[in-house]
């Protein structure tokens, strides 16, 4: 039998954990991660060998090691070097580096998907590379990269549950507390899953809207 009373009383703390932990950590990490990704992507296509190699190395390390391990290195490892970082910033650092590694390749591919003629049209108007990139190329690359970046964001929202292991107050950690207290593990963890699902449904809707908006200038 489902203990509805427990279900409803647990919803408060679990949702609150999402509201003050999961969602802000995800948003901050994603925003920061996109900035990192943009610079890594630009380094990759810069044509400057050292920069491009560094960027490739960064991407390789981020994608080639587990997120949980990255998180532990930052939170439990760095203190032995005298670098003590609080749970919240540790989580944001690890997650944004992670997004930076994955999204860099998405952004790089999106930039390269814009035809060369678009760069040249910018140049012939007298634009420098940076202006062409900002005004001509990136807006078009943004349209292409919304679907894959949305995937990255949705994965990130779910991955933030790992932050419970470095003591960040977030959705899953709150669920664990309630579960331990009530001993009804099945119900509470299913409930936590449902809350994640609702958050991700909201994100998918937002993604669809954004795609429609960015699609207004392409033929259908």
């Amino acid at each position, binding site marked *: 039998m489902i203990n509805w009373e427990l279900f409803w009383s647990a919803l408060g703390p679990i949702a609150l954990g999402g509201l003050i932990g999961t969602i802000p950590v995800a948003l901050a990490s994603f925003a920061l991660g996109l900035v990192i990704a943009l610079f890594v992507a630009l380094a990759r296509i810069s044509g400057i060998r050292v920069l491009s190699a560094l960027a490739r190395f960064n991407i390789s390390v981020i994608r080639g090691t587990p997120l949980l391990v990255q998180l532990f290195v930052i939170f439990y490892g760095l203190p032995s070097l005298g670098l003590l970082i609080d749970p919240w910033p540790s989580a944001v650092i690890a997650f944004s580096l992670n997004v930076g590694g994955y999204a860099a390749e998405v952004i790089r591919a999106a930039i390269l998907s814009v035809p060369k003629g678009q760069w040249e049209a910018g140049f012939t108007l*007298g634009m420098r590379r940076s*202006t062409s990139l900002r005004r001509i190329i990136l807006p078009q690359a943004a349209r292409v990269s919304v679907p894959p970046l949305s995937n990255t964001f949705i994965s990130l929202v779910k991955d933030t549950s790992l932050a419970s292991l470095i003591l960040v107050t977030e959705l899953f950690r709150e669920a664990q507390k309630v579960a331990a207290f009530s001993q009804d593990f099945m119900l509470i963890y299913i409930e936590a899953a449902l809350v994640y699902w609702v958050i991700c449904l909201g994100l998918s809707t937002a993604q669809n809207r954004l795609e429609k908006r960015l699609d207004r200038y392409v033929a259908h």
Partner: protein
Amino acid sequence: MSPTEVAGGSPLLEVTGLSKAFGKTEVLHSIDLSLNKGSVTVLIGPSGSGKTTVLRSLNGLERPDAGIVTIRGGETLGADDEVRVDFAAPAKPRMRQLQAERLRDRSAMVFQHFNLFPHKTVLQNVVEGPIIVQRRARAEAEAEALALLDRVGLADKRDSYPFELSGGQQQRVGIVRALALKPQLLLFDEPTSSLDPELVGDVLGVLKGLADDGWTMVVVTHELVFARQVADEVLFMDGGVIVERGAPSELFANPQHERTKQFLHRLLFPL
């Protein structure tokens, strides 16, 4: 007096010894070219002959290995306000960039595939250069853009996106975008080659109007009728050299070189 020569004036554009190789393939071999203000020069020749590379070099989109390009100031900018780029002289990347920018200051390019900005409306496409690059006031730039759009019959499309336009309309926007920069020199790279045949006339009509208004133009095209009616001088290129040049009436009626004859024959009698 040759048709491009104006008594007393020195040419607006002078190109000497323009050469370029991609790896071992020589695409331009010492091209010389000179044209006066208000003249129309048409480059014809088989594909791969180097005509597009000449045009792109004038706009700094391609960097030749050698050669000198001089664009003189003329009345508006003062006679000594000239741009002169010697491509053979060693230049650091920063200098090369600067040289390309100075050439682009004076010329504007119309592309075969239009290259309109798909995420911007017609009006936004046209005012992008004047406002963002030339830092002119928005109100003034938009008023001028609308007048130019009106001229090519597209004022009512100001808020359309490029995908909503036909190829001919897109190319007319491309031309207006170039005109809005108020360049000394208009460069056209096969402006009608990617258009449906029935749309070619519209665009050529616009080009003819510009020539009548006194714009200085270099046009790469396969439209021989246009060349015959509008060009002051026609250059026939093949294999990276200018094989033959002259007034269209002479060059078409009485080509001197075998290669010119063959090329014209192929264009006129494709079967």
